[in-house]
Structure formats: structure tokens, C-alpha cells
């Protein structure tokens, strides 16, 4: 086998650019509201402890492996799995799952654009402004929802169009520090509010008894996996633009996973003290950001500035995830169809825009999409991805050949155990858990529909993959 590093491919212009693009891809809307909310709900410090254990046990080795798959093959999702000896269908499944995810993620970015517009115009501060009414008005206005969805797709399409170094990297180098600084600034302000200590206590007081509850571990596991996007092709695709001299374990593994969670904690420090200072419900979920916080800013000294800083950070966090995750289907389509980047970006973004319309127009539909993709498509993609790495290509072969190649941190044989046994077991367990949880819920028919959806998706992915396998009998690198 030859060395894939001799094949021409776009590469990152700087180490920091790659690291911030990875971080930007993973830090999204869920970090702002979900992590603090879950931590508070599931025993504060006890949840955080469970989360950190799972992060190091599952997410860190998984991200090392996924990035190595990309760097080793220097190919996007479909080509990478084919080169690793797996079925192209695994790559098609990964690309379809992320494509599906983005069809309902871009409408949410559209919501953030809407609120950013309010923050910019200062309407939170006008007499008679009611957050609930503003949200209902937005939901009832199809043209506005369509416009914000379209704007979100266009904004994310720009860096994608300009490519890896000139587009994704430059945008990440600008946006990630801005949203990090925005969170720091808002956190400092929040921690100086009266009753801020209550927010800290909610987040950090450990209720050790909660560790005996399997639901707490499942919640921590879900957050560790979903927040890092493990197995969704993100680390694989961004890693495919690394050069031979680039490290994987320390940067793509430890820094990305831990940095992502650190920002989740920072978001907790920014949001929870504010929530407690103004008597809001910390378990409001995403509504916390869209309904609760807009009511809070007018009550704060210098509220206009704080709202602007917060929503700029929030928008940038959403956009960096938007374009970096969309690079997964863009790169896969570009390579498989043999088209230019520009054409691939336009085609994929047009598809996301079009198929995202139902989610943009109906929150019920986007909820259904989240139910189908979050419970089945994405975990199935992660499971298939880890099976190819651990069992088809071989965890030991990947570790000795590539994970430790040019590495800043030596990775020992423990990593093989994590990839071959721990991660597949964890993903299989999560799939069973989600199915069981949905079946015992109020709508078992919906759960069966979800399973049918997964079966259909697998048929499509492996059908398309078989065609690709036949057409491109590639020589592995």
C-alpha cells in the first residue's frame, strides 16, 4: 500500500486553524443551554463527574480514531470507509445522517439570526416588548422563518465555498475566539449578579446518590457523544485535511473533547447565575435562550451591550457548527461525484435549504426529524463507524501506523480496547435504550416508525454504497 500523504489535497494553513475549526464544529447551541440544564437536573457535580469520566473513556479515544481515519485515508466519509476496507454504505450513512441533521439545524440557526436582529435593533428594550409574544409572532410568520432559514444557509455557505484554508479556517479563526470571549464577558457579568451563587450551587453541588441512577449516566453519555459529534464524520472530514506532520491524539482528541466541555461549563457560568438572579426556570431547555434571557437583558445595567455580545457569540457558535458539519456531505459529494467545490457546495446547500423547509416552517416537523435522526440515524452512524475502525480495519493497525504517527502524545494499547469494545458496546446500548425509552413512552407507534426509518435509511445507504463500491474499486492507500 502507498502513502496517501503523497496525494494532493487541500490542507489547513495553521495548527490553530484546525483546532478552532474542530472546536467550532462541536460547540453549538446544545452547549449553551443543554449542558448547564442537564448538569443541574442530574445532580450537579455528580453529573459533571460522570460526564468527565465518560468524556475521557469514550469521546477522547473516539475522536482520536475518527480523525486518524480521515488523515490516514485523506478522503471524505464515503471514500475513507471504502479505503479502510469497510463498505461505502457506512460513509453514505454518515453523510446522509449529517445532511439530515443539517436540514433541521439550519432553521434553528435562523431562530438565532432572528434574535440577533432583535438584539441589534434593541427591541428587547422597547416598551411593551414581550418575549413570548415575539416568539409566537415569529412562529406564526412563515415568510420570516423562510427568510431566516435562507439567510442561515447562505451565511454558512460562504466559508464552505471558499474552501478549507480560505473559508472554514479563516471563519473559525475569527468566530471561535469571538464566541469564547462573548461567553467569558457574559459569565463575568452574570457572576456579579445578586444570587449568582445559587446558580453556581445548582451546577456544582454534587448529589452523589444520583450516580446510582442509570438515567444520569445515559444523559451524561448522550451529552458526551452528541456534543462532540463522534462518528458523524466531522472529525474524519476535518482530519482528512491534516498533513503528515500533524499530531492527532493531543489536538484532535484531548483538546477538542475537553475544550468543547470547558465551553459547556463556561456557558453554565454565563447562563445559570442569570437564571437564578432573575427567578427563571433552569429546566426551560432551549426556551431559556429564546424566551427567558430576552426578558432578563432589559433588567441588567448595560443590558443592550450584554444582549448584543451574548447573541453575537450564540450566532457564531451556531454558524461554526453549521458550516463545519455541512463540510461532511459537501466533501463526500464532491469526491464521489468528481465535481468542483463550488458546485458541491451549491448542490448540497440547495438540498439542505429545500429539504429544510418543512423544519423551518413547523417546529413539530423539526421535532420529528430530531427524534428520527437523534435517536437512530446518528447513533447508528457512530456505531457503524467504530465497527469499521475497530474490527474491519483494526484498532491495533490504526494505532501503531497512524494514531501515533507525528503524535504529541503517545497512545498505548488501552486505546484499542476503547475502540473495539467500549465504544461499540456503548453505542449499541444507547440505540437499545433510545428504542426502549421511545417504546415505553406515550407513542410506541412513533418508535416503531423510527425503527422503520432507520431500516429504510440503511437500505438506501448500503444500496448507494454498493453502487459506489462497484464503480470505484479503489486501491487502499
Amino acid at each position, binding site marked *: 500500500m502507498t502513502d496517501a500523504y503523497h496525494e494532493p489535497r487541500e490542507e489547513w494553513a495553521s*495548527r490553530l486553524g484546525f483546532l478552532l475549526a474542530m472546536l467550532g464544529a462541536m460547540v453549538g447551541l446544545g452547549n449553551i443551554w443543554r449542558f448547564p440544564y442537564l448538569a443541574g437536573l442530574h445532580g450537579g457535580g455528580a453529573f459533571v463527574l460522570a460526564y468527565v469520566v465518560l468524556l475521557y473513556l469514550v469521546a477522547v479515544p473516539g475522536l482520536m480514531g475518527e480523525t486518524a481515519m480521515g488523515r490516514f485515508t485523506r478522503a471524505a466519509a464515503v471514500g475513507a470507509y471504502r479505503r479502510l476496507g469497510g463498505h461505502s454504505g457506512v460513509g453514505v450513512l454518515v453523510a446522509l445522517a449529517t445532511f439530515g441533521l443539517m436540514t433541521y439545524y439550519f432553521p434553528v440557526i435562523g431562530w438565532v439570526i432572528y434574535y440577533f436582529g432583535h438584539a441589534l435593533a434593541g427591541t428587547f428594550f422597547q416598551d411593551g416588548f414581550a418575549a413570548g409574544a415575539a416568539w409566537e409572532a415569529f412562529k406564526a410568520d412563515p415568510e420570516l422563518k423562510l427568510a431566516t432559514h435562507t439567510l442561515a444557509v447562505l451565511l454558512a455557505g460562504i466559508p464552505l465555498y471558499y474552501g478549507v484554508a480560505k473559508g472554514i479556517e479563516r471563519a473559525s479563526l475569527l468566530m471561535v475566539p469571538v464566541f469564547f470571549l462573548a461567553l467569558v464577558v457574559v459569565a463575568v457579568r452574570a457572576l456579579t449578579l445578586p444570587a449568582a451563587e445559587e446558580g453556581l450551587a445548582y451546577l456544582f453541588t454534587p448529589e452523589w446518590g444520583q450516580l446510582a441512577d442509570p438515567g444520569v449516566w445515559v444523559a451524561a453519555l448522550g451529552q458526551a457523544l452528541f456534543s462532540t459529534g463522534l462518528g458523524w464524520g466531522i472529525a474524519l472530514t476535518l482530519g482528512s485535511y491534516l498533513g503528515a*506532520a500533524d499530531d492527532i491524539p*493531543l489536538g484532535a482528541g484531548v483538546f477538542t473533547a475537553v475544550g468543547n466541555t470547558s465551553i459547556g*461549563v463556561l456557558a453554565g457560568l454565563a447562563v445559570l447565575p442569570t437564571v437564578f438572579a432573575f427567578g427563571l426556570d433552569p429546566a426551560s431547555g432551549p426556551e431559556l435562550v429564546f424566551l427567558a434571557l430576552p426578558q432578563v437583558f432589559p433588567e441588567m445595567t448595560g443590558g443592550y451591550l450584554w444582549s448584543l455580545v451574548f447573541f453575537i457569540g450564540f450566532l457564531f457558535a451556531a454558524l461554526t457548527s453549521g458550516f463545519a458539519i455541512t463540510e461532511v456531505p459537501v466533501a463526500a459529494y464532491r469526491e464521489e461525484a468528481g465535481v468542483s467545490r463550488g458546485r458541491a457546495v451549491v448542490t448540497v446547500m440547495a438540498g439542505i435549504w429545500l429539504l429544510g423547509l418543512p423544519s423551518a416552517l413547523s417546529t413539530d416537523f423539526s421535532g420529528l426529524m430530531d427524534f428520527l435522526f437523534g435517536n437512530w440515524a446518528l447513533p447508528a452512524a457512530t456505531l457503524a463507524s467504530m465497527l469499521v475502525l475497530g474490527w474491519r480495519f483494526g484498532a491495533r*493497525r490504526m494505532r501503531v501506523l497512524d494514531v501515533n504517527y507525528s*503524535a*504529541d502524545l*503517545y497512545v*498505548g494499547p488501552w486505546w484499542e480496547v476503547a475502540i473495539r469494545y467500549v465504544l461499540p458496546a456503548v453505542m449499541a446500548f444507547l440505540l437499545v435504550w433510545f428504542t426502549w425509552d421511545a417504546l415505553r413512552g406515550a407513542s410506541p407507534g412513533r418508535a416503531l416508525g423510527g425503527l422503520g426509518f432507520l431500516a429504510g435509511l440503511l437500505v438506501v445507504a448500503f444500496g448507494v454504497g454498493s453502487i459506489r463500491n462497484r464503480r470505484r474499486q479503489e486501491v487502499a*492507500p
Partner: protein
Amino acid sequence: MTFTAWISLAGVLALLWGVGGWSLWRTMREEGRKARLLQRYGSVDRYDPRALADLEAWLAEHPEDPYASLARTRIDETRRHRASGHPTFYGH
């Protein structure tokens, strides 16, 4: 806030922000050092001594593996650099 909560807060900051900050600082420093070696000498050792031993052991067990020739190339690359007498990235 209770004493336990403060300890929990400190632990989380050390385990997350401490490790995150350290990993960023270390990887930026090490990648800079690696780039300088490559620029000056045109080559660099690619494997930590333990990683090289792992790769050699794997190759000895799988001499006919489809990736064996790639493993040999990579082992030679590191050995050649070490034999050149130039400063190494990993040390001996």
C-alpha cells in the same frame, strides 16, 4: 454554596479548563518545534520510541499485511532521521 460544591467547582475547572488549556499550549508548542526541525533538517523522527517499538512488533507479527510496506517506509523514515545525528523530536 457548600464546601463540597466549591471543591467540585475547583475539580471541574482543573479537569476541564486546566487540561484543555494545557493541551492547547502543549500541542501548539510541540507542533512549532516539529515545524522548525522539518524546516531546518528536511526530516523529523515520526514516532515516539515506544510507538516505534509497537510498530516494529506489529510488523514482525504481520509481515504480509497489506500495510506492511507502508509500515517499513515509516519505520525507515524515523530510523534514518535518528541515524543522521540531527536533533530529534522525541529524543532517544
